């Protein structure tokens, strides 16, 4: 017996028992779900490989929404719509409603206190480092109200709205410096500004008749992206497009004006033979600041206003009513298109500097020296009707959009690009038909020192009968061309809502590594318990609510009629794509909470009775059941024992 009790035998016995134990678990049947087990016979994991589009797309497009007021996002080359980042206009689906006090504050005019929910986005400007995109922020301007917003590209959410002071609105050109330290926006719609400004620039404006004045507005951008007033330069003219130079044109701001006539109605605005292209020396603006040749207004005591006479600025004639103003990748060529003509002027900035040095002036207007156009131009191209904007690729070509011709013309640039394309410069090399009427166009990185090339997207203003009829108001058409092939090949078309002006296109590698899937805000509040607080002095109910599949906690709270209700919601979710919403029956209240996000909403409890609030995102199988109640008690019936206590 003693011989039997060897470690081997014991080990065998226990191993046997162990295997037995494991077998028990395997043999006891797990109850199958009958209907699902039938489905399983046919089930393939996914109809397409998971993440197919996420893996094949090369670029993100950030397209201004125009009168939609935000920023569209889609992927290229899939042309798959991804998002509409709300910026100036509330959008409940994308979680941007002024019921949230933080958002309301951003949307409130700092000078009038008025909530402004209308806007018109025009020119996205992606942040840059050393002249190329870095993927940190997208800045976007609002032409109508005169604002610039910053969108954080880790979260695709608006994080600041900057208001241009001293104007009523009407800005247009918007461009960012190669190091993202400075943004310039142009005042397009002429103003009758504060008398302090009129006195400082020495132009008295008749507010009824004009002529009015305008200028350019500089915005400083801090390391964290925060925008603040830098300076305003006011002068006699309006300015349309803006570029902050780089490379050969580094240190200069370049602008156009289509109303050098200083007219106040359409026809007189193209009365002249030509309009002007302006070159502003940034160092001279900084010097005027340092020399304190500034005034400030009561409205904006921190915005130094400079007269155009106190800065170094030159101009040169360009084809009438310029629209496009774009700088080639090395910063050498400045191409402008005369929208009311068939002409594109190619101005060589090296020649501009030489002409300034050699004083090749042909006159002056409003104290600004006019550079001889023959001394600064490399070419004047007659390419077609209604030229709009210009972009550049990595092979030495410019692409010019034509509104009236409804096409894009590809044009080889002059030296040093001839080494790349080996063609006769400034002659049409390809024509890309568009459907219809090209406004802006974009090449990935097309306004940077290093374009990525490969594609052109034509953002057409009209679609006519391209897509299924959908009433008199028609959608817009973004057309993707592959420009690695000659002739360029139309790859895809996408119907996208009204109405993109400029877009910028950035490689996915600059966005996806920083892309956040959740916010970290909720972590700081993890220890706070859900509760309801009653403030009888302020007549305010404050609800601290947690939100997680599929519960609001508290799921009921009582409120005396007429009191203000402030609900702070904390999403306890961490799972990807698990956004919840808060919509209150019968009230103008909607909020949206991404994973880990904290949001606040406010309203006044006006009507007595039961009001359900519910999640507006289909978050789980119990989504419909994810709801709760606000019970409003007529104020004369309210008693403190009606206060909601959690756990009771």
């Amino acid at each position, binding site marked *: 017996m003693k011989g039997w009790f060897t470690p081997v035998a014991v080990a065998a016995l226990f191993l046997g028992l*162990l295997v037995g*134990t494991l077998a028990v*678990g395997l043999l006891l049947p*797990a*109850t199958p779900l009958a209907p699902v087990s039938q489905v399983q016979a046919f089930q393939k994991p996914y109809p397409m490989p998971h993440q197919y589009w996420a893996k094949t797309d090369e670029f993100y497009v950030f397209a201004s929404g125009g009168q939609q007021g935000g920023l569209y996002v889609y992927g290229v080359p899939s042309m798959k719509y991804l998002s509409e980042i709300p910026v100036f206009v509330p959008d409940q689906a994308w979680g941007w409603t002024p019921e949230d006090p933080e958002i309301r504050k951003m949307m409130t005019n700092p000078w009038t206190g008025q909530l402004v929910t209308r806007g018109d986005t025009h020119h996205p400007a992606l942040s840059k480092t050393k002249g190329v995109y870095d993927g940190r922020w997208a800045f976007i301007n609002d032409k109508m109200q005169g604002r610039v917003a910053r969108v954080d590209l880790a979260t695709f959410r608006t994080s600041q709205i900057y208001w241009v002071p001293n104007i009523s609105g009407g800005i247009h050109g918007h461009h960012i410096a190669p190091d993202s330290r400075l943004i310039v926006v142009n005042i397009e719609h002429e103003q009758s500004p504060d008398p302090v400004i009129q006195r400082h620039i020495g132009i008295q404006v008749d507010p009824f008749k004009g002529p009015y004045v305008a200028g350019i507005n500089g915005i400083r951008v801090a390391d964290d992206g925060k925008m603040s007033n830098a300076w305003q330069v006011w002068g006699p003219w309006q300015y349309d497009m803006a570029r902050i130079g780089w490379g050969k044109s580094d240190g200069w701001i370049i602008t156009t004006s289509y109303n050098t006539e200083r007219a106040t109605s359409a026809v007189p605005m193209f009365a002249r033979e030509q309009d002007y292209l302006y070159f502003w020396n940034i160092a001279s603006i900084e010097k005027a600041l340092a020399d304190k040749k500034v005034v400030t207004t009561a409205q904006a005591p921190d915005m130094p206003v400079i007269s155009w006479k106190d800065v170094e600025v030159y101009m040169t004639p360009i084809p009438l009513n310029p629209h496009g103003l774009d700088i080639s990748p090395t910063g050498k060529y400045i191409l402008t298109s005369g929208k009311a003509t068939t002409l594109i002027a190619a101005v060589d900035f090296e020649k501009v500097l030489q002409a300034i040095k050699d004083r090749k002036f042909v006159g002056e207007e409003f104290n600004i020296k006019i550079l001889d156009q023959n001394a600064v131009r490399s070419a004047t191209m007659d390419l077609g009707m209604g030229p709009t904007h210009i972009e550049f690729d990595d092979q030495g070509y410019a692409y010019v959009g034509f509104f009236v011709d409804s096409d894009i013309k590809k044009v080889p640039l002059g030296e040093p690009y001839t080494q790349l394309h080996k063609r006769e410069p400034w002659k049409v090399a390809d024509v890309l038909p568009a459907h219809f009427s090209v406004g802006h166009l974009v090449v990935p990185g097309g306004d940077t020192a290093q374009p990525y090339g490969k594609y052109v997207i034509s953002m057409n203003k009209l679609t006519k009968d391209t897509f299924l009829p959908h009433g008199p108001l028609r959608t817009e058409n973004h057309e993707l061309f592959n420009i690695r092939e000659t002739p360029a090949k139309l790859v895809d078309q996408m119907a996208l809502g009204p109405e993109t002006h400029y877009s910028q296109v950035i490689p996915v590698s600059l966005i996806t590594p920083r892309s956040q899937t959740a916010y970290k805000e909720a972590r700081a509040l993890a220890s706070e318990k859900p509760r309801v607080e009653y403030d009888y002095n302020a007549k305010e109910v404050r609800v601290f609510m947690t939100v997680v599949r599929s519960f609001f906690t508290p799921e009921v709270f009582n409120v005396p009629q007429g009191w203000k209700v402030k609900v702070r919601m904390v999403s306890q979710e*961490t799972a990807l794509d698990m956004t919840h919403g808060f919509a209150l029956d019968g009230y103008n209240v909607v909020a949206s909470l991404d994973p880990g996000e904290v949001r606040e909403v406010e309203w006044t409890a006006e009507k007595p009775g039961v009001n359900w609030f519910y999640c507006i995102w289909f978050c789980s199988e*119990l989504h419909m059941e994810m709801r709760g109640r606000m019970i409003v008690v007529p104020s004369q019936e309210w008693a403190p024992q009606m206060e909601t206590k959690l756990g009771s």
Partner: protein
Amino acid sequence: MMRRRQVVLLVTAVLIWVSLAFPYWTAAMKAPAYPEQFLTLQLYSYKYDGDVDEWNRVGRLVGVRVPPPLPDGFFTFFSLAVGLAGLLALAAAFQERLLLPAALYPLLLLLALAAWGQYSLYEYGHSLDPLRPLRYLEPFTPPLVGVLTLGKIVTYHVPNLGSALFVAGAALVNLQAWRARHNSHRRPVLEAALA
């Protein structure tokens, strides 16, 4: 100079103690709503870890909850019991008469843990929330090692690195005990076969 057996037993003790730092058992759930990841639960000798909250949000439909209720001091017992296995192996290196207990004890412990684990899983699948939405789903028993399929939610249950280290330690100490016994019985044929 240390004998080879002593060195092996010291290594065994280290293996068993190191196992404390690693999960003993892992459950990994794959559900269609989580294409980008597995939801995992890790059982260490001293804690539960993993996507506990998310697991419960999926499990609510079925009526399961993790972690299952554990007796007071469970993790203390678990860690100390594993630590003791290492201690016995260490002691056996210097006290040959402790070799047999050092060999048997980890096997007993392993068996006990496996039995407890399977029982817990039985409880997990049999103490379903009476208010679960899928009330028609009958109670079930997930295997300690194996696959549980509930509709399109598939859960894989596997021992993890901690168990592997512990089993390796148990195997080594048993091998030493076995060799020691053979040496004392002087059975040269088997000895030669092993050599």
